């Protein structure tokens, strides 16, 4: 019983170490008055993109086939980047809102 517990603890520690890649960063994008800013961001696989919506209406960050994040008014929503490439994304509710994410 005791050894099982200890093993579990060690397992959790190993997972924690593996789960925190070296220098994963957070890139913040602000949405205000229906504009993503900055409009162009670059990130590395493992980074987190965080959108902060300062408007009174909901927006989305949508790249067809890749991601679709809804950001409620006054809230923040995040995405962990999993693959490299250039992603042009927009808001599904207001398709005139456009931005780009570059992942290396």
């Amino acid at each position, binding site marked *: 019983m005791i050894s099982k517990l200890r093993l579990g603890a060690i397992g959790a520690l190993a997972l924690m170490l593996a789960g925190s890649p070296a220098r994963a960063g957070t890139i913040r994008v602000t949405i205000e008055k229906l504009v993503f800013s900055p409009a162009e961001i670059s990130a590395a696989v493992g980074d987190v993109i965080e959108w902060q919506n300062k408007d009174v209406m909901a927006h989305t960050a949508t790249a067809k086939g890749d991601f679709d994040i809804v950001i409620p008014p006054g809230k923040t929503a995040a995405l962990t980047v999993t693959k490299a490439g250039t992603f042009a994304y927009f*808001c599904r509710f207001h398709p005139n809102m456009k931005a780009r994410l570059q992942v290396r």
Partner: protein
Amino acid sequence: MYARLTSALALACLISGASLAAGSKITDPQIAHIAYTAGVIDIEAAKQALKISKDKEVLAFANDMLRDHEVVNKQALDLVKKLKVKPEDNDTSRSLTKAATQEREKLAKLSGADFDKAYVANEVAYHKQVNGALETLLIPSAKNADLKDLLETGLKLFQGHQQHAEHVAAMMK
């Protein structure tokens, strides 16, 4: 005596300024009323679509319109309260409302795909019309900076809705 004369002069200037504005130009209270009315019209249109349509895309679009315009109109009301501006009914608001009522009566006779097509086509046309009014009349005429700012955000919102409506229309073909 001197002070009384200047204040009388200032008052005279104010009055002539006001009547000049009323005669030749649209005022902030009227602009606020038109912008609010434009939102109300799209809310009414969305409510009709939610009652009649059975199409998933059309219902989602109508819900988006309802949500955005309700929240923006609430923001507009908060602003006019803060600015102590009383929205003032005017010919432009009245003709907008009249045209919208006629459009709703026309749409009420339709159902199914006919309704969906007509509703979305009208949404494209309506947002285009409001965008034109915002760009050429309402924004350039607005005097208060906060009101101008709200209208500029409103323009981006309406442009977004127009593109969204065009997208829904293209998918129905």
